[in-house]
Each structure stands twice: as structure tokens, then as C-alpha cells.
């Protein structure tokens, strides 16, 4: 007799007991972005950290304006400015120990520089003399990553490997709001949570993926909410409040280091400049919107706090600006020298041992260059 024939007599057994493994509440982000500056919480912040953040913010802003100027002089092929987002960049760099790793996206030159990279080397990709201008192992900064979100699984893998080796290392990976739509973002978060990898994801939500606003990117209540589905905590923070970003990241890094697994942090900020110097932002946004964000400037916010607390005076402001100016002058001068490139380098690092075919091509180019030199004489 089949089930159908039994109809009426059939008593379904109740489904096997199953319930969600965790109460989602502790994973959920705050309803509003976490803020420190301008609140009572600011009183507890360490003065030395505040001063350091301030100096780096001022230097970072100057770096952005200088690099943008270099595009106008044809010294840089392209520059994606992070003006307005400096608090995220700087906090990401300062929150890490030397042994930790940073996985930047293509806009995060500043985070790499704040971590100690030579400002010229950090621009190599964007100048066009080579794809990566530094040894990632030296500073523990992965190559600035152009394909969006593809660096995130790398960060998870590295953090996982470090833990397997018994090393006390955390990876911090940066991604934009647009990048959170890529499959790699989802896969990275899932692996990180399943493996409980010591990794922190920082989404810089600057409102746009080139021209596309967040509303067209996601229907999630916030990007931080996405964490819950993977089983990791999501944190929402004011991305222009350097102290708040630093605190939230520091908490997430400590949590990861202690074996607590990954965290997804969404920093709410704004891209003040166009997508890159080559982009025309007037096509997709109005100045008035930009102005409201200018009024919530990360440097002004911190400067105000420091001044109120008597930790900064005019001399201090001048000293920070002078230091930034020195960095900019040095950057300008060194970027104004033509890089010396050897075309034979094209073949240098394709394989550890070049293929016979590459050797042939190498000989062809060598002959061409010799002929060019002869022709020039």
C-alpha cells in the first residue's frame, strides 16, 4: 500500500529537531554607525594614538592631493584618490602588528604607505613601470589588487595558513562597497567563518562603485548585516571617525588573534573625489551631496577633538602639515624622475626558469633594441 492510498490514516512524523546554531543577535551590527569623536567616549581615547592618527591623516590627505597632481603632469597614469576615506586607510594600517598582513584593493595606496611602504614604490602600479613596486613579504602588504574582491580569499588562506603553522598572525582585507557583490566576497566570508580564520574584512562603503550607488548594489539593511548569514559578527562604524574605526578594527583584530574567528566591519564614508582622475563624477552626483560630506571631514573631526582636549595647538597643526609637505615634496621630486626601465625585464619573471620559447622571444627583443640603439647613433 502506498502513502497516497493510506490518505487519512497517514500520520507524518514531526521533522527532526533542528534549530539555528546561534542566536543571530550578537552577530548583528549596531543600528547606527559607531562613533567616538564628538561623544563622551572620546575622553577615554589614548592621546598618543589620537596624535598619531592625526599626523597620518594629514599626511594621507596630502599624499592624495599630490598623487592627483601627478596625474595632471602625466607622471602617473591614473590615481584613484581616497580623499575623504583617510580615516579607514590609516586605521587599517595602524591597527596591525608588524607580523600581520594587509590585503589592499586598488584604491588603498594610502593604507600601504601608512603601513610603512615607500610612497614611490606604492605608486608603481599606477605609474605603470611595473605591476607591483614592492616585495609583499617585506612589509606584509599583498599587491594592490585591481580585480575586485579577489584578494579576499587570499587573505583568508593566508590567515588560515598562519594559524595552521601556529603563528600569531591576523590578516586584514580591504574591499569597497561594490566589491561586496562579487562572488569572491561571499566565498571568502564563508571560508573564513567555517575555518574560523583570523581575518578581518573592512568594507569601505564610500557610497559608489564608480557611478553605481549602494541602493543598486545591495538590498541588505547594511553591508555589515551580511556577516550574520555566514556566522560572523558584523560591525558598523562611522568611516570618517578615525578613532571609532581604529577601535572597532582593534576589537576585531584582537578577537581574531584570540581565536574568535573573522569579523566583517563596514565603515560608512564617502568618496569626495571622482572614481579616478579619468572619471567625470558630475554625471552621477550633485555637488550639494559632496558638500554635506565635506562638512563631516575626517581630519576636521579629529582636529576638533584634539584641540578641545588641549592635545593640539597651532604649532601642532603646523608640524603635521610641515611633515606632510616634506613627504609631498619628496614624492614629487622622485616621481618627476623618469624611471629607468629595462625592456628585457619583460621576460625576467614569467617563470623561475624561462621556457625555450621565451628565450627566443627574448633574443628577438634584444636584437631589436640593439638595432634601435644603432639607429639612434
Amino acid at each position, binding site marked *: 500500500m502506498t502513502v497516497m492510498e493510506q490518505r487519512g490514516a497517514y500520520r507524518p512524523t514531526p521533522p527532526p529537531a533542528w534549530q539555528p546554531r546561534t542566536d543571530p543577535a550578537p552577530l548583528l551590527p549596531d543600528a547606527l554607525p559607531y562613533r567616538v569623536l564628538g561623544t563622551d567616549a572620546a575622553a577615554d581615547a589614548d592621546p598618543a594614538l589620537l596624535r598619531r592618527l592625526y599626523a597620518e591623516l594629514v599626511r594621507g590627505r596630502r599624499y592624495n592631493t599630490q598623487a592627483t597632481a601627478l596625474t595632471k603632469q602625466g607622471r602617473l597614469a591614473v590615481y584613484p584618490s581616497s580623499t575623504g576615506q583617510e580615516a579607514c586607510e590609516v586605521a587599517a594600517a595602524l591597527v596591525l602588528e608588524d607580523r600581520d598582513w594587509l590585503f589592499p584593493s586598488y584604491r588603498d595606496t594610502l593604507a600601504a604607505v601608512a603601513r610603512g611602504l615607500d610612497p614611490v614604490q606604492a605608486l608603481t602600479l599606477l605609474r605603470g613601470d611595473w*605591476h607591483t613596486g614592492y616585495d609583499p613579504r617585506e612589509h606584509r602588504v599583498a599587491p594592490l589588487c585591481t580585480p575586485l574582491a579577489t584578494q579576499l580569499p587570499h587573505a583568508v588562506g593566508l590567515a588560515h595558513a598562519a594559524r595552521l603553522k601556529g603563528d600569531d598572525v591576523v590578516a586584514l582585507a580591504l574591499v569597497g562597497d561594490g566589491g561586496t557583490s562579487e*562572488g569572491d566576497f561571499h566565498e571568502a566570508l564563508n571560508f573564513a567563518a567555517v575555518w574560523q580564520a583570523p581575518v578581518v574584512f573592512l568594507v569601505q562603503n564610500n557610497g559608489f562603485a564608480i557611478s553605481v550607488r549602494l541602493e543598486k548594489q545591495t538590498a541588505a539593511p547594511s553591508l555589515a548585516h551580511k556577516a550574520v548569514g555566514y556566522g560572523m559578527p558584523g560591525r558598523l562604524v562611522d568611516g570618517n571617525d578615525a578613532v571609532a574605526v581604529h577601535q572597532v578594527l582593534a576589537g576585531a583584530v584582537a578577537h581574531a588573534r584570540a581565536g574568535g574567528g573573522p569579523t566583517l566591519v563596514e565603515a560608512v564614508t564617502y568618496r569626495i573625489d571622482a572614481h579616478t582622475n579619468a572619471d567625470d563624477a558630475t554625471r552621477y552626483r550633485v555637488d550639494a551631496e559632496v558638500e554635506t560630506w565635506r562638512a563631516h571631514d575626517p581630519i576636521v573631526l579629529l582636529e576638533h577633538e584634539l584641540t578641545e582636549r588641549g592635545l593640539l595647538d597651532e604649532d601642532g597643526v603646523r608640524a603635521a602639515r610641515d611633515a606632510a609637505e616634506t613627504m609631498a615634496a619628496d614624492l614629487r621630486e622622485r616621481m618627476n624622475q623618469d624611471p629607468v626601465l629595462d625592456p628585457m625585464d619583460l621576460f625576467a619573471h614569467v617563470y623561475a626558469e624561462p621556457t625555450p620559447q*621565451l628565450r627566443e622571444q627574448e633574443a628577438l627583443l634584444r636584437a631589436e633594441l640593439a638595432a634601435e640603439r644603432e639607429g639612434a647613433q
Partner: protein
Amino acid sequence: MTTVALKPATMAQALTRALCDAMTADLTVHVMGEDVGTLGGVFRVTDGLAEEFGEDRVTDTPLAEAGILGTAVGMAMYGLRPVVEMQFDAFAYPAFEQLISHVARMRNRTRGAMPLPITIRVPYGGGIGGVEHHSDSSEAYYMATPGLHVVMPATVADAYGLLRAAIASDDPVVFLEPKRLYWSKDAWNPEEPQAVEPIGRAVVRRAGRSATLLTYGPSVPVCLEAAEAATAEGWDLEVVDLRSLVPFDDETVAASVRRTGRAVVVHESGSYGGPGGEIAARVTERCFHHLEAPVLRVAGFDIPYPPPMLERHHLPGVDRILDAVGRLQWEAEN
């Protein structure tokens, strides 16, 4: 018959016009991709389309290439004709799973019941000083995947004609747009665009007697320049613009090589495992008794696309082509 004065137009403008005309002619044509709406695409190829046709038909998608192509598959399954834009060549790679596992073989695996009329526009190739991942030549991957058409215009008129044909095709078409030629101008009448160019026909861009340059896309103007320069050496070169890599026009190509007896394939993607090997083999199979020399290849080096400051050493230029042409005097040297 009225004669309309031809005006210079860019390849990008011709592509816009093709999209606009295709959408006007067929309500099932939908344009989708990253930044294709308000911004009009990073190369402005979709400029103005969102205002004209509305967001439902010209859609800024979330930033996810696999998602873009995957949803296009579903849309095509339900009778629409999606035209998707991949923002740059190297950013199409996340969509390869969809492309190779579904787009290319849906007709085959459904025994013809479910063809997918999807056009995948990919800004293609180097020579624009782009940073890493903005200059890849990816045609060999597409060519190696049965079920896809692979098309690449080299002129303004072909950009229009071939894109119209691609959108009208009942099969998926990978439409490679040479970035380097987006702003190149030809005399063209945007008010009265050329007829739709059927996919799969090569064209002789310059007639010649002493050897054939077989090429496509961004290398076509380079080959024409090389052909002019070669006259000084007494070479009269024929230049064939393949336009379509799949299907391949064996007839036009073989006829040309039989006439000239010598051939060089020129493209900017790498030579090892690249399109030139396939083309040279086909030519040899069909023209063996007519050949005075082996079919040579002038291609990019077999390296990851180099940084912009070195790309001129990588891209096949006039000198490298002339050098190969010189080597076609086979009997004399061997």
C-alpha cells in the same frame, strides 16, 4: 537617390548607434552591466541609452560579472536578448564559469531546444596605457570554447554592422571591442548606417600580390601601415581583416594566400597557444602547394600583459611585421 555626406565618427559612437537601433527595432533587446546606465559605461558606449529606453532595459547591475552573465542566461531562457557589458577584458574572467559551462553549451545540451541569444561586449586589448588587468587579449580562451561566436571589428562601419548582427544572432556572441580603436574615426554616416554585416566573413582591406597579412581588431591599422611601408622594399602586401574568429572564413583567407603564396598572421595576444597557431595550420592545410614559405606569426610575447611603460615593446608593431615579411623570402635563405 540622395547622397548623404559622410561624417567622421568614432567606433564608440557607431557601437552606441548599433545598440540604440537594435533596441528600437527589437523590444526584447536589453543592455546590462556595470555603470552602463547613468554613466553610459566607462567608455561611453551606452551613453544616453538609459534616458532613451529606461532603467528596465538599460540596467546598472550589481558589481558581479558571474551574476551579470548568469542572470542574462535566465533572461535569454525567457525570451529576451541580453547585451551584457564586461567592463574590461580581464574583468570578464569571473564570468567564465557561466560562459563556458552554460552560455556556450546551452543549445547543445538542450538538443537545440534552448538557444541563448546573448551578446557579450568586452572592451579588449592593450595599447591604451592601462594598468594591470586592463589590457588582456583573451580571444584564445573564447575561441577554444565551442558554442561561442567570436567577433572583432576593426573599422567604424564594421563596429556598427557586426554588433547589429551579433545582437540579431540566435547564438551567443563574444564581441571584442578593441579599446585602442574606440576613438579612431572613419568617414561614416551615422544617420544612415551601413547594412548589417553577416558574422563570419573576412574582408580584404588592401589588395596586394606578394604576401598576405592575416589580422584582426587592433592590429588591422598596424598591418595597413606596415603594408604601405613595405612598398619601399618592393613588397606589395595584401591585408585581410578576419573580423570573425569563430566562425572562420577559410574561403577568403585561402583565396588570398593562394594568390600571394605567402602569409603572416599578426595579433597582439601571445603566440604560444594563441589564435595564430590555429590560423597558420588552417592556411597550411588548404594552401600547402601554393605556399612559398611557412606561415609566420607576429604576436605579443608569451608573458602576462606588461606594465604600460613597456607595452610598446610587447605589441607587434610595423618593424616586427616587416621583419617577418622579410623572412618570407624562404628559398633565398634556406
